[in-house]
């Protein structure tokens, strides 16, 4: 089966990379150092895109959102920010439908297996075996 979700990145509220997983090899192999830089860059760009909202729309700054979907010719990046500032970035095939459903499910798995893990310290890199396992099962089942 052709899997269309390429990879998942989780960024904490300070812009640090806490989790990354590739589901196939469609994207270039990027070293962990570069991924950390990438996560930090995205965090900054997210904040800038929020402030770039045209003021003629009259949207108060509290309601503005940063980048939600980025399209390139090879992939699509969907970003979801939780209320606590954690960002989930999902790289998919450009025409993959229902990415928001997938990302919600990933958030659900994160809530269940990462934040409810008594040994997990918030904002720290995620090393939870149960999360890995369930994430992989979910991605395979799709």
């Amino acid at each position, binding site marked *: 089966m052709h899997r269309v979700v390429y990879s998942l990145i989780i960024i904490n509220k300070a812009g640090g990379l806490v989790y990354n997983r590739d589901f196939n090899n469609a994207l270039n192999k990027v070293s962990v150092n570069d991924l950390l830089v990438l996560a930090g860059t995205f965090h900054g760009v997210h904040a*800038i895109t929020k402030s770039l909202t045209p003021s003629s729309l009259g949207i108060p700054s509290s309601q503005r959102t940063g980048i939600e979907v*980025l399209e390139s010719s090879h992939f699509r990046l969907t970003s979801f920010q939780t209320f606590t500032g954690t960002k989930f970035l999902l790289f998919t095939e450009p025409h993959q439908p229902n990415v928001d459903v997938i990302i919600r499910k990933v958030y659900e798995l994160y809530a269940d297996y990462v934040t409810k893990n008594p040994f997990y310290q918030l904002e720290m890199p995620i090393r939870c075996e149960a999360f890995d396992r369930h994430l992989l099962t979910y991605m395979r089942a799709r």
Partner: protein
Amino acid sequence: MVVYSFYVFDRHAECIYKKRWAPRPGSSSKAPQANGVLDVQSPFKGLSAEDDAKLVFGTIFSLRNMVRKLGGPDDNFISYRTGHYKLHYYETPTSLKFVMVTDTKTNNLRIVLHQIYVSLYVEYVIKNPLSPVEHPGGIGVNCELFELGVEQFVTASLQN
């Protein structure tokens, strides 16, 4: 669809052309007017007119590099969307960058930006014998025909 602004950046990261459209007051469609009322104030709150061009460039530059790193050197950054606006990007082989900010419901504008480059920029700026090769501060790009062309192009091709 609504167009909020349009920018051209040269290969030295300088903004050489910038245009904004104010929404028509009291109109639900908010289409840009034919004679394009230029917004005197910056459309981005709390920023001066020069700052927003710099922020736009910083954003597209970072995103373009990110896309290249992940998708390989032949991958192109096309657009991004937030909850309130969408930014379209087109880069020529000479590193000239065309950026258009529209509402979120707009489809891909890559072709439109390419058309602006081919039928307006090349015709009125590159082929103008009086225009300099580089455009520091936007000299040569701010010619009347190009300005008029962009105006008509946006009004005609985007109002449907």
